[in-house]
């Protein structure tokens, strides 16, 4: 082993407090050190050339540069030694500037300290091994889970860039929540007008496959090489034949609840959620179908011109191999009925959720866009909105802000005025107004001044029916007195919660989720669209409540991250990863348990026993497993226990 040590003066930055020249002489005594040199500016052209020359002429097999922080120049020098034919990981930096010369005054003491820092670096480099980045072939296909606006955006961005994308949507149509909205804040443009073209684009894009009425069943593999099993739920309709004529829907005698209209209306047992559905294909809700329940009917089968009805259809499974997965499963509306008995717990007909109201406002909704009371179908004269139902409320376990309710309330308040006339009294009970987006604050202001919506600051303590009215009792905290408003219609600005089944999905995907079921990003600031599982990304409201602009913006951000990942044919990952000495692994699986990235996996050996194996391309090199393995048979390349112990020894002895 032949180590060269280069000690930088860094002008006077180091040399003023540390005797670089003297150090060069002393370092020469260290075991295996065959060359030392002090240099004015190691990082300069001539400095680097000097290192390269020494590597060649002295046959150096390891290099230490004692200079500034590795965070500053490690990359520089690694490249430098690599150019001279040395593996870049056979290089180590001793930080004698930030950690020595700059923080000390006494030259003698500082020099002594610098010497020890160098000794530590020499010890470390002595145990260094040449490391090579791992390369894996990358599958360039992408799976998007969830076909809401975020999922569609990601899919379109990626498909436009030439990648093959599969969207897995669990409902029979893509579109997500946005498809159910009427108008969108703050522009009050028609939701369908902006969304449906995007849905159609997706449907027709040659690079996009939409798998509606499907769910992800199992995920194996790792970044670049996932294998996903997808369950295609039986729709009882052969979608290859179905032409979406809706004849069956019209003739079907059985009725069932309509999720799409948020329970505001009923739908037929065979249904297509809305006219612009993509794909526009029918499905039978078997729970309500007469044939399935009572064994007679078969009307649909008779009327179907395409002969598409197939009562014997079974769930089928397909497998997709993809390089990256984007999760865009969005959010659900908070099930307020269970939590707010004081608001009638769902038993007062004229108290409805924001999403139901959204459907009511919608021209293609169950009421044809006509706003009326549920109890008597009269047009309401007094409409009260209550904000923060299921948001920012510790009492119901929802401390977070749902981020869209303030805004959609304002939107709906404005729409109420335009639907029911200016003379309608509209009250909004709020705690604070969160209007941080572009044009949002102005939007609220318009609702108040232009449309005359009454904003009352305070919580509503109770809703009760009285004399055909819904009595709204609350506190106006600004004025400091009780208020009681007899309302015709009360709309709860229900907060949002994670999509149903989100935790289970997270487990399938091996990504983390928070206590509310929202998926966790890798780092809230620096890696907001990645998860801790390499190759799995997030978009839209599944990560946290978001409005459409943010969801879409994030979706495009996600798309660019995915593109960044898949732009290469081979994935190069850092070689500083954990590696298991399988001859010693005892298969206790503690490593699998603690790894935040699910990098270790069980690997069966030829003798039938299983040992742990760290998937190099997934491992992020944190070393948690290393500190956990009881046999200490995992080592973290570049930070092996032995190299750390050697460093300790050098720092402590002598």
């Amino acid at each position, binding site marked *: 082993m*032949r180590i060269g040590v280069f000690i930088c003066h860094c002008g006077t930055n180091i040399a003023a407090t540390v005797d670089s020249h003297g150090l060069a002489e002393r370092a020469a005594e260290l075991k295996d050190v065959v060359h030392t040199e002090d240099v004015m500016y190691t990082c300069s052209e001539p400095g680097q050339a000097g290192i390269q020359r020494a590597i060649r002429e002295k*046959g150096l*097999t390891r290099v230490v540069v004692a200079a500034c922080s590795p965070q500053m120049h490690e990359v520089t020098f690694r490249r430098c030694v690599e150019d001279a034919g040395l593996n870049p990981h056979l290089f180590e930096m001793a930080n004698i500037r930030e950690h020595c010369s700059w923080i000390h005054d006494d030259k003698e003491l500082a020099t002594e300290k610098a010497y020890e820092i160098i000794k530590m670096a020499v010890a470390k480099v002595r145990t260094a*091994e040449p490391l090579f980045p791992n390369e894996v072939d990358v599958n360039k296909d992408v799976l998007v889970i969830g076909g809401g606006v975020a999922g569609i955006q990601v899919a379109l961005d990626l498909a436009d860039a030439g990648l093959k994308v599969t969207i897995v949507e669990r409902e029979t149509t893509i579109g997500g929540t946005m498809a159910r909205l009427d108008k969108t804040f703050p522009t009050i443009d028609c939701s369908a007008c902006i969304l449906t073209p995007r849905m159609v684009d997706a449907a027709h894009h040659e690079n996009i496959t939409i798998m509606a009425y499907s769910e992800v069943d199992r995920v194996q593999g790792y970044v670049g090489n996932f294998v996903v099993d997808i369950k295609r739920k039986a729709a009882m309709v052969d979608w290859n034949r179905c032409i979406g004529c809706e004849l069956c829907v019209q003739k079907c005698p059985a009725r069932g609840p309509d999720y799409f209209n948020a329970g505001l209306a009923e739908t037929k047992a065979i249904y297509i959620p809305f006219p612009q559905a993509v794909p526009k294909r029918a499905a039978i809700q078997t729970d309500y179908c007469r044939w399935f329940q009572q064994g007679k009917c078969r009307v649909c089968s008779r009327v179907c011109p395409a002969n598409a009805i197939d009562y014997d259809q079974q769930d089928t499974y397909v497998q997709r191999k993809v390089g990256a997965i984007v999760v865009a499963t969005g959010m659900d509306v908070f099930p307020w009925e269970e939590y707010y008995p004081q608001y009638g717990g769902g038993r007062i007909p004229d108290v409805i959720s924001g999403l139901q109201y959204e459907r009511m406002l919608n021209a293609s909704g169950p009421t044809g866009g006509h706003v009326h009371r549920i109890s008597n179908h009269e047009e309401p004269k007094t409409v009260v909105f209550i904000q923060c139902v299921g948001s920012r409320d510790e009492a119901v376990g929802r401390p977070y802000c749902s981020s869209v309710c303030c805004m959609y309330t304002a939107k709906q308040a404005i729409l109420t005025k335009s639907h029911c006339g200016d003379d309608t009294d509209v009250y909004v009970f709020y705690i604070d107004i969160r209007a941080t987006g572009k044009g949002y604050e102005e939007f609220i202001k318009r609702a108040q001044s232009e449309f005359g919506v009454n904003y009352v600051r305070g919580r509503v303590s109770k809703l009760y029916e009285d004399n055909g009215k819904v009595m709204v009792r609350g506190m106006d905290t600004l004025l400091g007195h009780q208020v009681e408003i007899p309302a015709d219609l009360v709309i709860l600005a229900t907060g949002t919660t994670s999509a149903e089944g989100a935790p289970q999905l997270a487990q399938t995907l091996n990504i983390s989720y928070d206590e509310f079921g929202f998926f966790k990003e890798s780092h809230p600031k620096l890696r907001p669209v990645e998860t801790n599982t390499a190759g799995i990304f997030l978009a839209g409201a599944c990560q946290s409540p978001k409005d459409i602009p943010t969801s879409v913006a994030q979706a495009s951000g996600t798309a660019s991250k995915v593109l960044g990942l898949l732009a290469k044919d081979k994935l190069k990952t850092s070689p500083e990863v954990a590696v298991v000495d399988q001859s010693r692994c005892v298969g206790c699986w503690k490593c699998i348990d603690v790894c935040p990235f699910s990098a270790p996996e069980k690997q069966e050996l030829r003798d039938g026993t299983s040992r742990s194996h760290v998937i190099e391309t997934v491992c992020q090199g944190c070393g948690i497993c290393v500190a956990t393995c009881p046999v200490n048979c995992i080592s973290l390349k570049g930070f092996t226990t032995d190299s750390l112990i050697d460093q300790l020894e050098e720092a402590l002895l002598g």
Partner: protein
Amino acid sequence: MSDEAVSSERRRLTFADVELGSSIARAARYAGNPYLPETATVVEIIQETPNIKSFRVRFDDEQVQAGFSFQPGQVGQLGVLGIGEATFAINSSPSEKEYLQFSVMQAGEVTIGLHCLSERDKVGVRAPMGRGFPVEEWKGKNLLYVMGGIGSAALRATILYTLEQRAEYQDITILYGARTPVDLTYQYDIDEWEARSDINTVITVDAPFPGWDGRVGFVPAVLEELAPAPANTVAVTCGPPIMIKFVLQALQKLGFADEQVYTTLEKRMKCGIGICGRCNLGPKYVCVDGPVFSLAELRDLPDEL
């Protein structure tokens, strides 16, 4: 079992038997301190395969270098002070007086340490150890060498020796296999052997490999194909345990008697001189009674391979 019962040739050694100031390398068995390595310098490193390097080392003491001799098949402990020692076959020719060659496959701690060495670095050597092949007994016979992977290291010295003494032996066949062509050691030897008409050299790799137009197949299978006649032939084999197992089966099928088959064993070894205890195969120690055993000898020993 008291001292009196001990016959004179089986008596204990005393300090009087000790040659002062010497290490094992200087005087084999009756040496002074058998644990003291002789220092040597790495004079040349040859990268044989991606994970095998050959080290040519020269004793620092010229007298020792000049006086060193060994039997083909004997081994030595090669060590890096500070890391440890491990056992390797001496695979240079016994007639090579300039250096000793060891081929080291990177495996664990010591071998990694060795692979980190550069030319001019120091190593410690304790050699020779153990028992070599009975090459003198084999004179006048056909020789069949069957080896796989790093097993070639254990046989190279013997092959070189018998080739130097070519006239003393009848037909010589060398069957050598590796996983891929990249894993073939001693390419320089192979070229020479293949060029010679007085030996039959068969090189094979486990599976087809881009650019390889030679033979493909596992060593035992190729051996059965070659079907060498057992008459007056000695078969010598070394390689990974699984290969040895099947080679032995193949040889048996071909009609080789246990006495005609030799192999060299690997066991974990520490002292290398029959004291520390671990490399026993029943009452035999691989380090002093081996590593070379005939199959006949092995049959008599407990099966703890």
